[in-house]
């Protein structure tokens, strides 16, 4: 063929020797072998994917079209009834879904900016430390991420308690207002939930940001320094644009994680004051296991899924367009 440029002429093996031939067959064989072995590595994931993701999803979609009563063997097909009920004013499902959704959306709006800003700030802080102590602090900030939700909740119930909590006691020592209802009043309840969430999960975002910061080339900073850019300018014009892709990733994953808020309000505020911090997943679980209405609960969960997907797409489009 014309213009067939081979950059590795040596690998064409023009001279056939017995030794060479045996070498060739061995490589073909090992290539096939290695491909087979690599596909084997995918297999466990594939099995898990089908068993734990694909199958439940399909099952959930089917259930959402049924009057799926958990304690009964009859699961009559009811078409869109569950979805219609969710949008019917005055229906229990309607109140449950939209009241919960409001709580969830509030949490997303309050928490995501902090999850990003604090995560990045911690990453910058840890990165600017001397190399010797860097890993120590990285570990310290990441440790809470490994703690279970119930342990986290027990800790923060004790920190935020109105009358015997650590925070109010500390405030009173400084003669500051110390009768704050961190878990019982607004806006404090949201502040406490966002605070606890930050402490619990920020390590993950921080780690990703640290990795991204390490990828930024040192030469760019050097050049900017010579050009007279100050620290803030270097951050704004070099760091931020360089970690853009990771930033998008963090924005999307943080939004999804915040949408799935459940344990913090369930354990710390019990959805109070009143139903202010009652979030959507709490209501989905209530419908599913409190009332045994699996079909309706699946419809609620799927609508929530749909919303997360739409929001992720919008976020992605918005951030991508700027790139082009």
């Amino acid at each position, binding site marked *: 063929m014309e213009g067939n440029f081979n950059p590795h002429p040596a690998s064409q093996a023009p001279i056939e020797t017995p030794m060479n031939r045996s070498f060739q067959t061995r490589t073909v064989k090992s290539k096939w072998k290695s491909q087979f072995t690599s596909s084997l590595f995918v297999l466990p994931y594939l099995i898990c994917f089908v*068993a*734990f*993701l694909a*199958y*439940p*999803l399909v*099952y*959930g979609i089917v259930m959402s079209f049924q009057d799926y*009563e*958990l*304690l*009964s*063997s009859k699961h009559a097909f009811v078409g869109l009834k569950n979805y219609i009920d969710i949008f019917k004013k*005055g229906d*229990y499902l309607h109140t449950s879904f939209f009241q919960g959704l409001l709580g969830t959306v509030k949490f997303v709006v309050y928490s995501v900016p902090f999850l990003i800003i604090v995560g990045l700030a911690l990453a910058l802080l840890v990165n600017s430390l001397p190399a010797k102590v860097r890993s120590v602090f990285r570990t310290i900030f990441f440790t809470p991420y490994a703690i279970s939700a119930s342990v986290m909740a027990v800790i923060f*119930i*004790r920190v*935020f*308690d*109105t*009358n*015997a*909590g650590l925070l109010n006691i500390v405030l009173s020592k400084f003669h500051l207002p110390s*009768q704050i*209802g*961190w*878990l019982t*009043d607004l806006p404090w309840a949201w502040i406490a939930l966002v605070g606890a969430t930050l402490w619990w999960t920020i390590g993950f975002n921080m780690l990703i940001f640290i990795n991204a910061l390490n990828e930024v080339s040192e030469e760019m900073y050097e050049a900017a320094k010579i050009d007279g850019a100050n620290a803030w300018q270097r951050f704004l014009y070099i760091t931020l644009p360089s970690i853009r892709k990771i930033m*998008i*990733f963090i924005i*999307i*994953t943080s939004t*999804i994680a915040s*949408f799935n808020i459940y344990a913090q309000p369930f354990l*710390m*505020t*019990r959805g*109070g*004051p*009143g*139903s202010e911090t*009652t979030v959507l*997943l709490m209501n*989905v679980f*209530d419908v*599913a*296991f*409190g*009332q*045994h209405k*699996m079909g309706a609960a*699946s419809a609620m*969960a*799927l609508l*929530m*899924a749909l919303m*997360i*997907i739409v929001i*992720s797409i919008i976020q*992605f489009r918005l951030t991508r367009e700027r790139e082009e």
Partner: protein
Amino acid sequence: MGLWKRAWGIAAAAVLGTSLALAGCSSKSTEETSSPSSSGKQEITFWTPFSGADGPFMKKIVDNYNKQSDKYYVKFQIIPNGEYYKQVDLALSTGKKRPDLMIMHVDNIPTYQKKGQLQPVDDIAAKAGIKKEDYVEAPVKYATIDGKWYGIPLDIHPLVLYYNKDLFKAAGIDHPPTNREEFIEAAQKLTDKSKGQWGYVVPTLWPQQFIFPTVVGQNGAKLADEQGKPQLNSPEAVEALTFLKDLVYKYKVSPEKVAQDGEVTLFLQGKNAMQLNGPWMKDQFDKAKINYGVAPVPQLGTKQQAVQAGSHNFVIPKDVTDAKVLEGIGDFLKYVAGHSIDWAQSGQAVASKQVLASDEFKQLTKQQTIVAQEFDYAQFNPPIINWGAMTADLYKEINLVLLGQKDPQKALDEAQEKALQVK
């Protein structure tokens, strides 16, 4: 694009976490705690939610039974309390890995009976020589539906009054209060704001699910009528809630803005003199080494004595038909009826009259005998399917009232309206 795919994958994963739990693929976190040696014996699987301090007490009963029985072997399984009914529901609905015998709270029995998941225990009881009269009446009566008996009671756990003996002594009060007047008077004497000490810290969340119905019952009303219609905004209910609110804002014997478990924390710190809570708190208070006393709940309502209670019952799923298994269940239950003294050691008062009358029971620490005194007027949640859903908003409204953010009448009117939405 890689990133895009990843975001998608995570979105799907996040969402599916929910579907996953709903579809019932969640792994079962049961814990087998019984010793082996079941060889040749008929096995009976027994599920319980006793994941707290009470677990070892039930295990002891089962172990002792297994040692003395040469025909049957009870396989004792603990499922974490918060997971229990989820696992039970999934097991019953799929019919796989279901228990032969299990513990169920008495107020869940009507729901599971109406959904056709339970079988009557009359025949098994008759064969094993277990009689209704052997047990305290309230739970037996409640678990008898359309003339058939569905649950054999193990214990009854009513609300009780815990009080700090040291604080009572310092305030010069010689006995725990028995009615509303004494209660308010004592609480006011015990309150010393300068020391951050309170007479009775009013919880705004759990365990209001026990406290509020107790006061309503003491006012002579029920939260649902005979037809199963909720009556959450009756004058008696409004009076009860107003009284609880007044403790905070009028009598000022409780701090405001009490968060979840706030009253327990203050009680453990010796800054809350009285607490209404369940008998299951005993273990925690013992470990904290507080000098506390237990008394029946004072009559805080205006009409009569009453107390909200729960009760653990033995129930048998409908699909258990093997005659040998059923016979074994009867044999085990008969044994438990005579040996539930081990269960009483956990702080619970048992429902078996034989054990209640025994010297062993009377010699137990004071709590169990005090608890047993309340049995005559114990009440349970109304026998209505979805009662939990009907009252979910009730307790959110009560929360707002006790936080001083809503008027009792308005709150209960709205709770009633929401309850009527539940089908």
